[in-house]
């Protein structure tokens, strides 16, 4: 008698059950932790606790180094020194490179801190080194720890059901979290997703709703009290528009059977190499763009382009989004660097709700130019599609946030 394949496996299973006797298996602590972190009942509270600890350590570490060290270094020593030694105070080169200053009583007045000076060598360097560097170091250090311990695959399994609602699967958490450091490796990591549909949805959501570490770092520094609301709006948008994209984008989002590796002790040398590699990669992209961004924005201000665009777009900004027309400048700057844009927004006079709306708009309105270039590398059709979605999302979601503000009486 010839058996079919499945009859053979039935037989194998029966024979295995009858012939193999296992001794009593003793659960190790590692097994218990492994189960606790995957089962939803215990895994979700643990995931919330891990993420809370992640952000608490992130905020404390970044705040300690930025406020406790770099703010003093840049504001008390670097800025006054440059203001003194750089030639041509008040001239266009001085304004772009050192300090745009301000006019008080008809006279040119120098800025007293690097966030408001908007020079390439002051704001540009301060944002890159004083704000972004501590944020990125601690972010990538903790991410490497979670990866090397083996927590990330478990988080992926845990969140799998939720991400299937938006056409993705659990491993989409990886590009999402990587993007919280920098969108560029996040976009590259969308390659781990299997279908075109999944890659398109992921790339679009990353470009629109995931703020990078630099932006989070500066938000933590200049508007810490509003960060929770801004992130909440972005998370809600991520799921709402992910759900809509899953319904309208054709293609498959298959389920997976996952064989999760055991927990293990992280290797210090691996963590050090990973953190160093990521920071080096980030700075290769970030430093030139921050400095170039600050220079281009300075030039655009000098030649009046930003004022012109601000006036032209005022009805949209004021009427539809409910933010001051001065936010046009930072929004244009955000194309080059979003962190720089948030720093610029922080010195514009507006209500708290307008600030929340403006920062959410900076996050969703356009990916920074480095992310844009990376998306183009992944395919121009995908990029065009993502940009079309982005345009709709900015108007729909920006308007919705304004509407919510009006209904709550805070806009």
């Amino acid at each position, binding site marked *: 008698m010839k058996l079919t*394949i*499945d*009859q053979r*496996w*039935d037989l*194998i*299973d029966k024979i*295995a*059950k009858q012939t*193999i006797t*296992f001794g009593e298996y003793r659960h190790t602590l590692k097994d218990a932790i492994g189960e606790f972190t*995957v089962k939803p009942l215990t895994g979700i509270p643990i995931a919330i606790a891990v993420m809370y600890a992640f952000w608490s350590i992130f905020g404390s570490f970044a705040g300690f180094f930025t406020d406790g060290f770099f703010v003093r270094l840049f504001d008390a020593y670097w800025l006054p020194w440059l203001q003194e030694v750089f030639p041509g105070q008040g001239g266009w080169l001085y304004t772009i490179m050192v300090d745009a200053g301000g006019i008080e009583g008809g006279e040119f007045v120098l800025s007293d801190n690097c966030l408001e000076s908007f020079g390439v060598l002051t704001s540009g360097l301060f944002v890159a080194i004083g704000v972004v560097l501590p944020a990125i170091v601690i972010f990538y250090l903790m991410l*490497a720890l979670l*990866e*090397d311990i*083996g927590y*990330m*695959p478990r988080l*992926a*399994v845990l969140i*799998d*059901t939720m991400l*299937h609602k938006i056409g993705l*699967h659990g*491993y989409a958490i*990886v*590009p999402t979290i*990587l993007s919280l450091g920098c969108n560029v*490796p996040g976009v*590259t*990591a969308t*390659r*781990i997703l*299997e279908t075109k549909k999944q890659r398109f949805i992921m790339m679009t959501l990353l470009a629109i709703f995931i703020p990078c570490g630099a932006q989070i770092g500066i938000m933590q520094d200049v508007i810490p009290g509003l960060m929770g609301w801004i992130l909440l709006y972005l998370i809600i948008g991520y799921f709402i528009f992910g759900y809509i994209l899953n319904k309208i984008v054709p293609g498959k989002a*298959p*389920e*997976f*059977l*996952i*064989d*999760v*590796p*055991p927990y*293990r002790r992280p*290797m210090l040398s*691996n963590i050090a*190499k*990973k953190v160093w*590699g*990521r920071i080096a990669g980030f700075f290769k992209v970030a430093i030139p763009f921050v400095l170039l961004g600050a220079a281009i924005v300075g030039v655009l201000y000098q030649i009046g382009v930003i004022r012109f665009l601000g006036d032209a777009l005022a009805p949209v900004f004021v009427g539809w989004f409910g933010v001051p027309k001065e936010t046009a400048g930072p929004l244009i700057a955000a194309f080059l660097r979003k962190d720089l844009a948030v720093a610029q927004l922080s010195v514009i006079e507006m209500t708290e709700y307008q600030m929340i709306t403006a920062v959410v708009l900076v996050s969703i309105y356009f990916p920074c130019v480095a992310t844009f270039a990376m998306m183009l590398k992944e395919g121009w059709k995908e990029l065009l599609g993502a940009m079309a979605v982005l345009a709709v999302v900015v108007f729909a979601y920006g308007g919705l946030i304004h509407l919510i503000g009006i209904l709550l009486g805070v806009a």
Partner: protein
Amino acid sequence: MTVMKKVLSGTVKGGTTDALARELDMNMSTLLAMIDFLASAGYLEIAGLRCSCQASNLCENHCGSQGCSQTKMYALTMKGEQFLSCNDL
């Protein structure tokens, strides 16, 4: 329903191999051997063979063979789907 069909149906539902072995009351080693066979016979495809520092291009350079434990992900192929639907008849 045969064991093979149960495993393929389990793949369609998603989840972990641990949970599936418990659900089907199978030895984990038998299940893993079966999954290996199903993958080599074309019923399942290995969708991801990734180390735990997921998707980072640094992974290959920095983890090496000892540094990273691997997560395997299996998805049903067309052949697997056909096998399931044939058996449904």
